[in-house]
């Protein structure tokens, strides 16, 4: 538990503590702050000035106003599971942690919506309503612990976003504290198509640079009547890719269509949730269809036929819910599983047209060979969202730089075939430079102009999302200094 008195003469700490109601709601000692020097992106680290835990919107507003008036940089953080460094306090920010604002405020099944506080954990929403036949669709792999506030900031995706869309398609309204402390509501009452600019669209995925979300109205979906999952093993990755294309071409819209390559399979099988994938295959596909029960069997048969046409080694449907659960646990813990085969990893998040899959995979294999670093591939193959995982050892001199370069080259390969540099993890600090692969200077300027309107002093989460030449040099320097 936290110490019971403030043990510092720093006036900012004392004042911030007063806003959130005392010493139990602020961290400022080095040992405590160290746990906040990075998020799920561990390559870059910086200590925050303090971490504060507001309980409600008013406290957030007061904290923001104080920071803004005093010229203190600040940012919002959820569970800190982001993979692009969006919550890393690169400027020694005051971290406003949203995790104690974790209430499920209301559920309105009639209108299929719910209102949550930003610290509410993604999976808890589905767990709270599943017995009544509803669920919340966006399902990032970290859904066991990531917060919906963080999902909004990053416009999080997930395995089932192929059919149902990413977070932005499920956000109906937001309460936001602007960087000057003002509180605004957008998308009031969850009514669709409000007149005026699409502010919900701009805020969702803005990576915490425009405001701090304090209340979220989300869309709920009815549980599908039926669901079936198929597992398919391919000797050649090209055959697996072809099967992905053919399934979509056949007019089937799977709820999820996931792929893992040989190195990824090695990791998940060596980790805590193995399912016994053969180690000598090049690709495994996990295909899920859902919807009206009557049509499912036919779709499954079609999928089995397509896979067989693509030289599948083995393909079968899940025997029961337990087996389906095991397959998904194996897939969803895939990133963390890299720990079993490598001390560190860097995950990339490129998007490509599906038809380019074999070509880009070949390119990634080449990058791996040239860099001397292994690259595992886990991806949402159905929507062409690749996650190359560059494996490295941060303790070896020069490996961080090599990994960053390999990751960047993977994104270049995606951009070169008409794709883009992030599908769901966000740009953060990790992919700022790579924004240039997909945007011209004038296009970046148009976006930073929007930021200026909301965040004119750039005190809120500065140095994220867009390339700023001076800053990049600094970061490279810091990495080199490690």
């Amino acid at each position, binding site marked *: 538990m936290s110490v019971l008195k403030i043990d510092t003469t720093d006036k900012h700490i004392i004042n911030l503590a007063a806003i959130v109601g005392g010493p139990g709601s602020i961290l400022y000692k*080095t040992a405590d702050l160290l746990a906040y020097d990075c998020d*799920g992106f561990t390559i870059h680290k910086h200590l925050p000035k303090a971490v504060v835990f507001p309980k409600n919107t008013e406290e957030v507003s007061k904290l923001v106003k104080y920071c803004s008036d005093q010229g203190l940089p600040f940012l919002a953080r959820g569970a800190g599971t982001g993979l692009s460094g969006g919550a890393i306090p690169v400027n020694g920010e005051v971290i406003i942690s949203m995790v104690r604002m974790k209430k499920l405020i209301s559920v309105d099944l009639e209108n299929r919506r719910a209102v949550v506080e930003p610290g509410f954990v993604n999976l808890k929403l589905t767990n709270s309503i599943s017995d009544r036949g509803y669920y919340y669709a966006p399902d990032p792999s970290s859904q066991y*612990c990531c917060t919906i506030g963080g999902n909004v900031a990053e416009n999080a995706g997930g395995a089932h976003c192929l059919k149902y869309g990413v977070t932005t398609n499920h956000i109906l309204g937001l309460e936001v504290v602007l960087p000057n402390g003002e509180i605004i509501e957008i998308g009031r009452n969850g009514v669709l198509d409000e007149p005026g600019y699409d502010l919900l669209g701009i805020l969702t995925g803005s990576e915490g640079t425009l405001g701090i979300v304090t209340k979220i109205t989300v869309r709920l979906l009815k549980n599908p009547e039926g669901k079936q999952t198929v597992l398919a093993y391919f000797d050649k990755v090209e055959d697996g890719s072809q099967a992905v294309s053919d399934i979509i071409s056949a007019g089937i819209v799977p709820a999820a269509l996931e792929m893992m390559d040989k190195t990824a399979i090695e990791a998940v099988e060596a980790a805590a949730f193995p399912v016994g994938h053969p180690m000598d295959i090049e690709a495994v596909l996990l295909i899920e269809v859902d919807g009206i029960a009557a049509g499912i069997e036919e779709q499954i048969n079609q999928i089995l036929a397509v896979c067989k046409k693509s030289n599948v080694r083995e393909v079968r449907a899940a025997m029961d819910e337990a087996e389906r659960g095991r397959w998904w646990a194996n897939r969803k813990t895939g*990133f*963390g599983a890299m720990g079993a085969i490598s*001390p560190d990893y860097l995950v990339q998040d490129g998007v490509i047209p599906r038809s380019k899959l074999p070509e880009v995979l070949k390119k990634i294999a080449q990058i791996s060979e040239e860099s001397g670093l292994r690259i595992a591939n886990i991806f949402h193959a159905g929507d062409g969202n690749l996650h190359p995982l560059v494996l490295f050892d941060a303790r070896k001199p020069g490996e961080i730089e090599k990994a960053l370069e390999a990751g960047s080259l993977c994104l270049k390969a995606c951009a070169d075939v008409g794709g883009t540099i992030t599908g769901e993890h966000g740009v953060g600090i990790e992919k700022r430079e790579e924004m240039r692969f997909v945007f011209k200077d004038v296009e970046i300027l148009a976006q930073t102009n929007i930021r200026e309107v909301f965040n004119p002093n750039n005190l809120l989460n500065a140095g994220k999302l867009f390339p700023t030449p001076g800053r990049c040099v600094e970061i490279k320097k810091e990495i080199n200094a490690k």
Partner: protein
Amino acid sequence: MSVKESHLNEETPCTSSLGNYLWRDPPQEYKWADCVHCGMCLESCPTYEQTGEEQHSPRGRVYLIKAVAEGKLSVDEDFANPVFSCLDCRACTTACPVDIDVGGLIEEARGQIRQAVPLNGWKGVVNKLFLHGVFPHHNRLRSLGGLLRFYQRSGLQKAVRKTKLINIMPQHLVELESIMPEVKGAVRKTLIKAKGETKQEVALLTGCVMDVFFSDINQSTINVLTRNGNDVSIPSNQTCCGALHVHAGDREMGRKLAKQNIEAFEKADKVIVNAAGCGCMMKEYTELFRDEPEWKKRAEEFEKKVVDISKYLHDTGYEKPKAAIPTRITYHDACHLAHGQGVRQEPRDILLDIPGVEMVHMPNADRCCGSAGIYNITNPEMADAVLKSKMENVPEDVEMISMGNPGCMMQMALGVQKYGRSQKIVHTVQLLDWAYQKEEGDDYHVRLKD
């Protein structure tokens, strides 16, 4: 093939210091090497759930433990705070994609802290008095038991409560006093023969707390074992398993007790344990002997013999009781049974084999109750917050809560009393024993009132 440097997968000798860990037996690098900071452990952690503070989360703690080894932090009170707020419940290891042994790291880090920052105040007294003065000494524990028995039976307990003398104790101890189980006479025999033909011979750990406060559970364990063809031996030179000491960072005493038990049970083929915390500790004795190869080898052999009573019955088979105990019951997973030993289904199967028992699902059944050894004495506020969450998950309409650990039983009894619930707290093996006895004409209701 793993790309990781091979030395990371090996245990390192623990004689040398590591970064700012200056004493023997520091946290081992290979245990944190797999952590990639993904955060999948966060929601599994009761203290993170309560505080939302990442230094009180498994990921945060592992990160800080690593930071000390890297020389970024020193072993001081600020470091001790998150390390000692851990319940050592192991739920994070279950949630972790790569099975990081957070509990092991925490225990090793506590070993370092205890040498760098000596305990003072209330916690120091508790540690010295109980961990050194009482638990390791069977006779003293029994004397204390006798004293408590006298306290309860002589009317002194009533007097103390009535005269408000009790108010000189801290509030959380007053609460504990009020649920203190009635001390019963301990099991004194050293060999109890199987009823009928002997199929196997097993040894029983009677434990320290179990022996004083829950000797009826030891008796039930013996009854169930002998009923199913087991000769039960109770080596008299056995001692406390050392879990409480190792959890508190007193690894020296842990080693001493471990050695005594390894010797005491040398001749046994199976060591049956009915306390999850003890079983888990005894299955991890090897961890204590990294730089004592001889003892390490003996510990490895010993670990293989240790088995929880529910798993032993499940694996070797047991007679299904014929008499019915009509009751609605829910099951609480003791952390050191579910997360520590992977025993989840076996006790549930035993309960389901008793005619008349209706099992009601408890949401988050494998969430810690806050007992955690002596955590509820040393960290009462957090323990109470964790208990409150636990009690909210206990279904309203059940008559009993079954479990397999004495610490949980006391804590849950406290929860029942504190939150105005009515459930009877039972050990899984007790219910099986009562069903057998009812078969023979004994009324279990009498035992329920005990």
